[in-house]
């Protein structure tokens, strides 16, 4: 590659600045602030005797963050599919690197917003005298914590960089996936009963998106002094926490990686 082309890091920097300039980051941080308010409200209304079952990310927060991340994936490059980007096609940067830089820039801003939201939630929780136990959280648990929002973002951003109808595509995909999951769950129940459905759910995308983050961190924080083992589940203060939930995260990260590589390869081959 010629010395005069722009490398991956320069392209990423340009895209990070661009997202600020187009006002998208301002919107994201505003939403993050609203999420902190929501989190504060949830903590405020939780009776003090129930604080022991709070993880530092509330279950409701996790789902909310996944929804925000999915929305961010659509909004980041909203209405800017390849057909609209013709003037940018002449930029002296490798096409794949450029596309990855665009996606990574959105992911980085999402992580920043996520980290700020979590930090603010922890501060709020600590102000109620309940400092979450963060020490000893395994790296895999941290990855799992961030998996839901990041996976949601990657799925939706792939749609928004590839088509004008990203919202419709994502909604249709969600409905199709829900239907498919319902059908497969039904078949699994017929063949193997509730156990089969449980095993299936461990690997489902919904588990990777919605469940993993909260429960893994709760596991790491509270399991050492509060867990017992029943069958194959660890029971943490009455919540079922399946160690296999990490597997859903790993599985869907791998699939997302392959999907992204395929999309980039197709675009490069175009």
């Amino acid at each position, binding site marked *: 590659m010629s010395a005069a082309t*722009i490398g991956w890091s320069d392209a990423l*920097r340009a895209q990070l600045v*661009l997202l600020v300039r*187009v006002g998208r980051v301002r919107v994201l941080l505003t939403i993050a602030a609203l999420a902190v308010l929501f989190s504060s409200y949830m903590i405020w209304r939780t009776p003090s005797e129930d604080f022991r079952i709070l993880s530092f990310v509330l279950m409701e927060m996790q789902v909310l963050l996944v929804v925000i991340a999915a929305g961010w994936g659509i909004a980041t490059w909203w*209405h*800017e599919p390849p057909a*609209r980007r013709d003037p940018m096609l*002449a930029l002296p940067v490798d*096409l794949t690197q*450029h596309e990855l830089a665009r996606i990574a820039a959105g992911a980085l801003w999402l992580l920043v917003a996520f980290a700020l939201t979590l930090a603010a939630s922890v501060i709020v929780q600590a102000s109620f005298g309940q400092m979450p136990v963060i020490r000893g959280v395994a790296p895999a648990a941290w990855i799992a914590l961030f998996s839901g929002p990041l996976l949601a973002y990657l799925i939706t951003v792939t749609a928004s960089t590839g088509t004008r109808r990203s919202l419709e595509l994502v909604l249709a995909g969600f409905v199709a996936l829900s239907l498919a999951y319902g059908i497969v769950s039904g078949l699994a129940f017929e063949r193997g009963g509730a156990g089969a459905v449980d095993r299936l759910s461990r690997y489902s995308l919904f588990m990777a998106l919605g469940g993993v983050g909260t429960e893994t961190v709760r596991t790491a924080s509270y399991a050492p002094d509060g867990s017992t083992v029943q069958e194959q589940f660890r029971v943490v203060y009455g919540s079922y926490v399946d160690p296999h939930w990490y597997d859903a995260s790993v599985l869907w990260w791998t699939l997302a990686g392959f999907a992204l590589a395929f999309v980039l390869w197709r675009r490069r081959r175009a």
Partner: protein
Amino acid sequence: MEVIPTVVTASRWGIETAGLTRRYGATVALEELALTVPEGAIYLLAGRNGAGKTTLLRVLLGVIRADAGDAFVGGVRSGPNGAARVGIGYVPESQETPYGALRLRDLLAHVARYRRSWDGEYAQHLMRELELDAASRIEALSKGQLRRVQLVLALSHRPGVLLLDEPTDGLDPLARDVVLRLLVEHVTDSPATVLVATHVVQEMDRLADHVGVLREGRLIAQLTRDELRSKLRRYRFRAPADWTPPELDVAHRNGGPAEHEWTVWGEESEVSGRLASAGAAVSAAAPLTLDEAVITLLKLEDR
């Protein structure tokens, strides 16, 4: 019968393709294309809708891949890695421009981050000449203003090669005039090879020094403007009713039984001589305008 040339000669090429082929399913967009644009030339690429002009420009940019053949721009092979794009300024066919919420100055700053040779002062000069306000948001600009923005983006890094796809599309007559003037000024100050794909051929009459005509993905003519002017001419003559027409490469026949008007490819002296030998009295042998010449070349294939 003399064949319309499809090969031009030069010592250095600004743009060069060899055996370039691109298909979309069963449709052949480009077929064995050997387009050669001499360095510093202003090359008009003409052709009907769907002839393959835009596909060619996108292959040259390296944003779509050719199924076969090679393409070089400024001596650098076109490809997805962007090396060739370093020296290319590009005005796309569509006026659509991304990042609607962005202000124009921020869009310029964004593109400048990618262009090491970005000339900020020149960009400001172009903005003034094209009456663009740096504080405007992209989404608030009209089609014509977006086209002008694209021209600023294409020219401001002073590229060695300009690929312009319908560069005056959407512009009002005054703006068209300004754009054409700026193009002339640009190539005077910063020598560049210019490839212009356009349907508005007459605009290029004063600018183009090379002409290529694409038809269904094939180059049916490629020659200098001088050769086109000297060899493709319209002859007006009177001929007796019982005359036997000479063998000529007639592109187009017009006129009545007494006075004829033929467009003929060939050296003027030879064509006039043959007509005279056959008993015709030639009253005029005029070159065609660029627009007329391109239309004639496009029809030529239909014979």
